[in-house]
C-alpha cells in the first residue's frame, strides 16, 4: 500500500526528474514502436500474403528472432556503435537514438512474425477476393492492414509493451545516464540495486499506469475509427 501511495505522490508532486524519465521512456517507446510497425506490418503482410521459396525457413528465422534475448540485441548494437565499431563515428552510443535502434532489433521480428501469422490465418478471404479483382500487391497489403486493423492493434500494443518494459538492451546501449538516457525500467533497476524496494515498486506502478493509458487510448482510437 505504501508503494501505491508513493506512486501517486510521485505523480502528483510533479517531480521534475520523474517526468523527465517518463518523457524519455515515452519518446523511446514511441519511436521504437513506430519504426518497428512501419517496417514490420508491411513486411509481415507481404510474407503472409505471398508464396515463395524459402518462406518456411524465413518464418522460422523470424520466430527465432522473436525470442532474441534483449541483452544480446543490446550487445550487438553496442558492438556496432562502440568507438571501434563500424558505426562508431556516429557517436550514438549512450543516446536515446541507440536505445531506439536496439529496441527496433528486438521488436521488428516480433511485429513481422505476429503480423505474418495473423495475415495467414485471418486474411485468406480478403486476399482471395482482392487477387480475384486483379488488385496490385501493394493494394492488397493496404487492404489487409486496413481490414485487420482491430486485430493488428494488438500487434502494435504488443510491440509497445515490449518496448516500454524492456531493460536489458536499453541499459547496455543507453547506460542509464541521469537526465539523459534513464528510462522507467532502468530507474527501477537502479532503485532496486540501491535497496529502495518501495520506491522501485512505486516507479513500477507509475509504469503500469502509463502503459494502461496508452493501451486504452489506442483501443479507443481504433474503436472510434471502426465505428465512424
Amino acid at each position: 500500500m505504501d508503494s501505491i501511495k508513493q506512486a501517486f505522490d510521485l505523480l502528483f508532486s510533479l517531480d521534475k526528474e520523474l517526468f523527465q524519465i517518463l518523457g524519455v521512456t515515452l519518446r523511446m517507446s514511441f519511436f521504437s514502436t513506430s519504426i518497428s510497425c512501419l517496417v514490420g506490418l508491411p513486411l509481415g503482410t507481404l510474407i503472409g500474403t505471398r508464396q515463395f521459396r524459402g518462406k518456411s525457413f524465413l518464418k522460422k528465422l523470424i520466430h527465432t528472432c522473436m525470442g532474441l534475448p534483449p541483452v544480446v540485441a543490446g550487445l550487438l548494437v553496442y558492438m556496432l556503435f562502440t568507438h571501434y565499431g563500424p558505426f562508431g563515428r556516429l557517436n550514438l552510443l549512450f543516446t536515446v537514438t541507440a536505445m531506439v535502434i536496439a529496441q527496433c532489433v528486438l521488436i521488428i521480428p516480433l511485429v513481422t512474425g505476429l503480423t505474418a501469422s495473423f495475415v495467414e490465418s485471418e486474411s485468406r478471404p480478403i486476399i482471395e477476393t482482392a487477387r480475384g479483382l486483379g488488385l496490385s500487391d501493394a493494394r492488397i497489403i493496404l487492404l489487409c492492414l486496413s481490414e485487420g486493423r482491430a486485430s493488428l492493434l494488438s500487434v502494435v500494443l504488443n510491440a509497445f509493451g515490449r518496448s516500454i518494459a524492456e531493460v536489458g538492451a536499453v541499459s547496455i546501449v543507453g547506460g542509464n545516464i541521469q537526465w539523459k538516457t534513464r528510462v522507467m525500467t532502468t530507474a527501477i533497476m537502479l532503485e532496486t540495486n540501491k535497496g529502495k524496494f518501495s520506491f522501485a515498486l512505486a516507479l513500477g506502478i507509475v509504469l503500469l499506469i502509463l502503459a494502461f493509458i496508452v493501451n486504452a487510448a489506442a483501443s479507443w482510437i481504433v474503436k472510434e475509427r471502426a465505428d465512424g
Partner: protein
Amino acid sequence: MVELRSVKKVYKDRTVLDVPQLRIQHGESVALTGANGSGKTTLLRILARLLRADSGTVTAPQDVLYLPQHPYAFRGTVLDNVLIGAKDRREQALALLETLELSALAAKPAQSLSGGELQKLALCRVLIRPCALLLLDEPTAALDTNGTRLVCDALARYKAQTDCTVVLSTHAPQFAAKAAERLIVLCDGRIESDGSI
C-alpha cells in the same frame, strides 16, 4: 484461348484435379459442375493463378477476374466496395447495382448484407471491370430464383460488352443452361463428360 495440358493437383496424397487436356475457345461460356470435392474450385483457382498446378501446363489470358465462392465484404458501404480499385467507374457501379436490385443498399455498410446480397455485391464488384477471362465460383449458391435471373441478365450484358470467356461452377442445372453453352462434369478431379448444353 484457355488450355490445360496434363494438369494435376494433389493435396496430401489425394489427387484433386487430373485434366489430361481441356481447351476453351475465346468467347465461350463454360459451366463446370460435379459433386462437392470434384475439383471445380481447384480448376478455377488454377486458371485464376491463385493456385499452382503440381504438373502440366496452363495457358490463360493475363487479364483474369475471379469471383470466389465466399467473397469478402470490405469495410465501407456497398458502393465503396464496388468501387474498390475502380474509383472512376461510379456511373457504371450505380447502373450495375440497379441491375442487381442493390440500389437501395448502396449507402449501407457492406458487412451488414445477407449472404445473397453479398453474392450480388461481389458480382457487381467483378463486373464493373473488363477482362478477357471471367471465372465465377458458384455465383448463385446463395441466391433465390429472382436473384439467379438477375445474375444471368447481368452476365449476358457483360459478355455482350466485353466478349470475354466465361468459366463458372455451379450445382444448379437451370443456371448452367441459361449462363453457359457448354457443360463440363467433373468427378474426383477428372472430366467425366464435356459437351454443349
